[in-house]
């Protein structure tokens, strides 16, 4: 069930110049959050910002009743959110959208391909998959080392591979050029810049691999009411907020082929 709740910022960490993370809790039980779901945050104190900002959920600690958000500073809204301090309150609508499919058997192989801020939902996903006994390979990419905001946390949940455009860390090249990407998997998950996700989707489609992508778009309502955040699917326009953000590429041929 979705709810509106005031959370307290329990921890704030700056991750390089353009990323930060917030750990949020409200002292009680949270709603169940599936990997790939997102929140909408109310941004206060910034006159240019009226609408909530959709942010994917990076990690969930069900026992502690906390969630972690990994946020990239891109505009007025996220810049204002970056000014928040530990102890500040944040009004959150959550959990929104439908997340990644988790119907993989123990022992099956999954690859999680992330780029930039798109690495955010993959941490929660890899944690849940590992608990199910899925063998995860996590490939994270970025233009340069400092633009891959979170790396080490992934190592606990699978084989971690890095690719950078400038060769500053890991494989020198794109995530789709990483040797681990060419292996066989039962499932490919991806979240990151659109050109990266399209390349991952095309490769998965060519190899006949099941693949899910997590899309991003400008949003208003976050619950499928306003129809502002649509994407082209093979069934016509669908809301990224409600029908996604995670889509199976079998419904997105028009999207990844162009």
């Amino acid at each position: 069930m979705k709810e509106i709740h005031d959370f307290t910022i329990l921890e704030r960490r700056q991750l390089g110049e353009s990323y930060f993370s917030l750990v949020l809790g409200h002292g009680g039980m949270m709603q169940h959050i599936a990997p790939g779901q997102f929140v909408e945050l109310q941004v206060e104190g910034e006159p240019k910002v009226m609408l909530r900002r959709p942010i994917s959920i990076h990690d969930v600690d069900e026992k502690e009743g906390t969630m972690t958000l990994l946020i990239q500073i891109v505009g007025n809204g996220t810049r204002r959110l970056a000014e928040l301090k530990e102890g500040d309150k944040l009004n959150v609508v959550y959990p929104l959208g439908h997340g990644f499919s988790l119907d993989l058997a123990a022992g099956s192989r999954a690859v999680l391909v992330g780029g930039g801020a798109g690495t955010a939902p993959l941490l929660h996903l890899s944690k849940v998959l590992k608990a199910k006994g899925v063998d995860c390979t996590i490939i994270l990419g970025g233009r340069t080392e400092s633009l891959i905001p979170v790396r080490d946390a992934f190592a606990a949940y699978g084989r971690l591979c890095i690719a950078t455009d400038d060769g500053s860390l890991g494989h020198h090249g794109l995530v789709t050029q990483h040797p681990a990407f060419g292996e066989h998997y039962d499932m490919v998950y991806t979240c990151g810049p659109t050109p990266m996700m399209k390349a991952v989707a095309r490769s998965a489609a060519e190899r006949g691999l099941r693949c899910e992508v997590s899309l991003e778009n400008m949003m208003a309502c976050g619950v499928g009411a306003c129809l502002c955040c649509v994407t082209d699917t093979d069934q016509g326009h669908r809301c990224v907020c409600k029908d996604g953000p995670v889509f199976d590429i079998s419904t997105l041929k028009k999207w990844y082929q162009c």
Partner: protein
Amino acid sequence: MLNVNIHNLKLKNPVMTASGTFGYGEEFADFIDLNRLGGFVVKGTTGSHREGNPYPRMVETPSGMLNSVGLQNGGVEKFCSAVYHRIKHLDTNIIVNVSGSSIDEYCSVAEQIDALEHIPAIELNISCPNVKCGGMGFGTSPDMAAQVVSAVRKVYHKTLIVKLSPNVTSIAEIAKAVEGAGADSVSLINTLLGMAIDIERRRPFMANVTGGLSGPAVKPVAVRMVWQVAHAVKIPVVGLGGICTAEDAIEFMMAGATAIEVGTANFIDPAVTIKIIDGMDQWCKKHGISDINEIIGII
């Protein structure tokens, strides 16, 4: 205390939601008790399925937003056969926003909605700025507006609310024309036509180039138009445009609105409608007002 009437429509309070901002109500059922609303207006419904405009479809602007959704909806048959049966049990007024590209289409949709027992009213949308054919084209000339309303009036027998466009020289003139053609009420304002440019990419933010402005930015324009229309017609006026708080709602009622609709504010706070209802109740108590009707049109 908060009860108001729009023609035959009895509202437990003046608070409704604006078409296109509240889906079919279901999207907000986790956040609020829909039965507490005076009513809600479901999204624009057309004769057949519409995919709407290409995207990007929205951009945030100072104290508001532009949208160019373009009436994406599943069509009237899908509404009648599927959506209606999921929401008809609700104890509130469910109003269908009826849109079209021709007089025939408006009439055909209205006729099909007329047959639905639990839909007591329609809001005839002659003011959508985001569709090429029809929409606002019917709402910017008094003659055209009167033609479509009188045609729909012949086939629709329940409460007929006509939603007016602010993108006109004299909204009072349009309001008088639709009153004369048989409308039971008018609602205003639909969005103001606007545009925003991404200067770095040197192109408009929205694929449709122009879109409709909503949110607090339009509120003073809406209050002025509600006041003008309320003085020009005898039928009840439903006011909307940037309402976010109980105080905003009361301002519209003083300007002449019998009921109000909450739109863009639903995106900022999905439970805002209930806060507005409770806030109006408290405001009345604080000011010793036993019947909200006392403040309608006092300006």
